[in-house]
């Protein structure tokens, strides 16, 4: 008789279920995104997914791991989607592919594959690409620009010249550049009055994408796939620091709402800092991780040279996650109220 250990009953759960639910949770955000910039984002999702699966399969083969089992786990798809969502939607196809392949091959498999990567692969991809191709990574479709699918495809595939008029900057970047160029002459209120770029709060239409991520994140929380700690701390940090500076000099700093709804804030809060593999796992650790990542993201985004700071903030915190975890081990049953 085979030796089969208890428990004999298992909950219906699998890694692919977890990953599928994460993907599902991204759908509202993706929908809003597609509505905002057109089908380009869907094309990018497909490109990234194909690249991820191909890279994953190749690496599994090289490492002599069972292909079907690990391909079905869906983790590569999650990475791919996060990359597609953080890259500019009209980025050339090879940029997305490069980022994705780098994420899967280097950030994931060279570190031991599923569950072993110390850094968030999608954030590694973003960081590598923005350092290597800063111009391409900063070209976002001009707002209000609706192009038919074929035209967008042509741009992505490089069949059409990347006319500068077609691409601009994100609201975050635009504001930073404007404030810099304005050199104290232009203030935030003036800039925000420009509804075309900044929409109601934080960039025309982008607030809807952010709302989509929020919705998906809350669903993940309700499904108990993530806990509230890291997203809460991340958002709290951004609100706290942006709020403080905004109250101090409302003409030079954007409001917390702007920061919350722009850039990768909410995507980061619910889908990036919650990554359990590269993040913290203890409740207090998650709070520290989320809060520090939020602070860093704000500082890099506002004072640093890159359009957004979430990726670098997360990577920096990934470095410290094991230590934070070690120092924040929760008290266990029967040992509360005592010193560890």
């Amino acid at each position, binding site marked *: *008789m085979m*030796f*089969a*250990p*208890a*428990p*004999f*009953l*298992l*909950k219906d*759960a*699998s*890694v692919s*279920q*977890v990953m599928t639910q994460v993907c599902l949770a991204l759908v509202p955000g993706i929908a809003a995104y597609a509505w905002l910039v057109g089908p380009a984002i869907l094309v990018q999702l497909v490109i990234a997914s194909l690249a991820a699966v191909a890279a994953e399969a190749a690496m599994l083969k090289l490492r002599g791991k*069972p292909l079907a*089992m*690990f391909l079905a*786990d869906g*983790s590569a798809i999650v990475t791919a989607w996060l990359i597609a969502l953080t890259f500019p939607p009209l980025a050339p196809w090879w940029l997305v592919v490069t980022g994705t392949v780098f994420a899967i091959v280097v950030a994931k498999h060279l570190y031991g*594959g*599923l*569950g*072993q990567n110390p850094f968030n692969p999608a954030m590694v991809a973003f960081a590598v690409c923005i350092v290597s191709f800063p111009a391409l990574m900063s070209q976002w479709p001009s707002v209000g620009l609706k192009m038919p699918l074929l035209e967008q495809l042509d741009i992505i595939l490089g069949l059409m010249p990347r006319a500068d008029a077609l691409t601009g900057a994100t609201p975050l970047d635009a504001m930073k550049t404007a404030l810099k160029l304005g050199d104290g002459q232009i203030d935030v209120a003036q800039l925000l009055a420009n509804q075309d770029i900044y929409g109601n709060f934080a960039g025309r239409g982008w607030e809807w994408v952010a709302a989509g991520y929020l919705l998906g994140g809350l669903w993940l929380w309700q499904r*108990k*796939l993530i*806990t509230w700690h890291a997203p809460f701390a991340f958002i709290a940090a951004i609100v706290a620091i942006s709020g403080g500076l905004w109250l101090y000099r409302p003409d030079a700093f954007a409001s917390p709402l702007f920061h919350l709804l722009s850039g990768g804030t909410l995507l980061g809060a619910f889908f990036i800092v919650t990554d*359990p*593999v590269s993040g913290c*796992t*203890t409740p207090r650790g998650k709070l520290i991780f989320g809060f520090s990542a939020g602070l860093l993201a704000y500082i890099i985004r506002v004072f640093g040279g890159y359009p957004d700071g979430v990726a670098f903030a997360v990577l920096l915190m990934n470095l410290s996650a094991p230590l934070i975890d070690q120092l924040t*081990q*929760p*008290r*266990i*049953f*029967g*040992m*509360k109220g005592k010193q560890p």
Partner: protein
Amino acid sequence: MLMNLFKFKGGVKPPTNKTQSTGRPIAAAPLPSHLAVPLHQSIGGTPRPVVAVGDKVLKGQLIGEADGWISAAVHAPTSGTVVAVGPGKQPHPSGLDADCVFIEPDGRDEWIARQPFDLVNATPDAVRHYLQQSGVVGLGGAVFPTHGKLTPAKTVPMQELVINGAECEPFITCDDLLMRERAIDIVRGIGVFRDLLQPQKVLIGIEDNKPEAAAAMRAAVEACGEDFVVVQVPTLYPAGGAKQLIRVLTGKEVPAAKRSTDLGVQCFNVATAYTAWRAIAHGEPVVSRIVTLTGNVRQPGNYEVLIGTPMDELLQLAQPNPDTDGIVMGGPMMGFLVPEPAVPVIKATNCLIAHSERLFPPKAPEMPCIRCGACAQACPHELQPFELYWHARAKDFGKTQQYHIFDCIECGCCSFVCPSRIPLVQYFRFAKSEIWAREKEKKAADEAKTRFEFKQFREEREKAEKAEKLAKAAAAQAAKKAAEAAAAAAAGDAPAVAVAEKPADLTVDPAEAAKKAAIAAAMARAKAQREAAQPKNTDALTPEQARDMAEIEARRVQAGIADAPAEAAAAPTATKTEE
């Protein structure tokens, strides 16, 4: 009475699968063709057999005598002939043999003369002794001798006596049925425990999916004129774990390193109270218990079963389906597949589940841990199972202890929820048994060292004593000579005194030196011995050594909790869930 209930963290809600076996009342299982009664059925010392091959025994007759205080007697479950005393297969995952008394029933099922115990005139010690002699042990699964838990802590007043009728494991319904049908005897038994422990209150915890049992117990408490409180606790596995139930009912958390009595609380299973009362009121030692037969069977139900009944024979009563491929003893969360179907029912056997792949589909292959934290959220002891797993896998056992591996009650909640299908509990059992094994090795080495050093010490001492004696004799001799000389010289020269001193000096010196040299040599030897006795360094292994270790490990993993029962004596609260 409304009571403030507490919560424990974690827990899971597996499908309960209980209704299948609660439809019919408890039935008496027919006499089996033969019985194999293991002598070691409780935690602690193995009882010594007091019968020999060929002896005629009566039902309830003592066949194994308790060995030491933590040990409980074993009795013949029916009348018949002892056909063998010797090793037999055990219902234990290790598949190891242990001594059994094999009895061929004579079919008359004839009792010994049964004397009710005179509770009124008995001292508490006499009651405890009587329960030990009657083989009363915890029937929730931990089989700790009950009398050993009936002494209150000296310094802490007993506040609560918790009676465990939670029965949280899926499939198992033996306590449920027992409470429904025999509540009065249970309540009387609880009364005995109460008298011995003198708690301020008695709380009977029953999961709220057993309303009939709770009602029956309430009625019985009232009928007996007791003030016990029957509390329905939320159905949440493992609410029936002693520590979890204590937490839910009293808010107290008993850490692994402490006895519950140190916190003024003690916990017994309902079936234990029942058997205690049967022993006291009817003079019947524990020779049977209620067993749930369920799983892949056509006629699930509960049976009163003689200890020692072969499991496969018993399971026939429930008509297992043809695709049954094994027997699980215990529930699906903490039970185990018995090594072969004919192993005997023991006092710890609360449930037999006919196993089939239809009922318990084979597990999907193990994936790497994705650190999703589901296991930590499910762990009722608030451990970080994935960290434990990580360190157990890396064989960093020191780290596993740092992460409190011995607080793990092996409830299986973590394995239950893990999306990567990692058999986490397996790893924890493995780590525990490894640590135990190493501890044992180290202890043995330490003991050898102590013995060796003592021997050295004794030899040196004897040598020194001998030398001293010689020296004394010589000194006495010299003194005598000196005295003579002095006497002789008394009238003459004075320098004789110097002569008298000198020999004494000379005789002491060589002895001292020899002693010192011997001690130094002994210490050097002891040091060498100590170094040789150091636990093996596991960091820099040759491939051969690594392979050997891998083999040992494979065996350990195969054996599962092989070491557990023997060791559980040292850590009685560490292993089983209920009681």
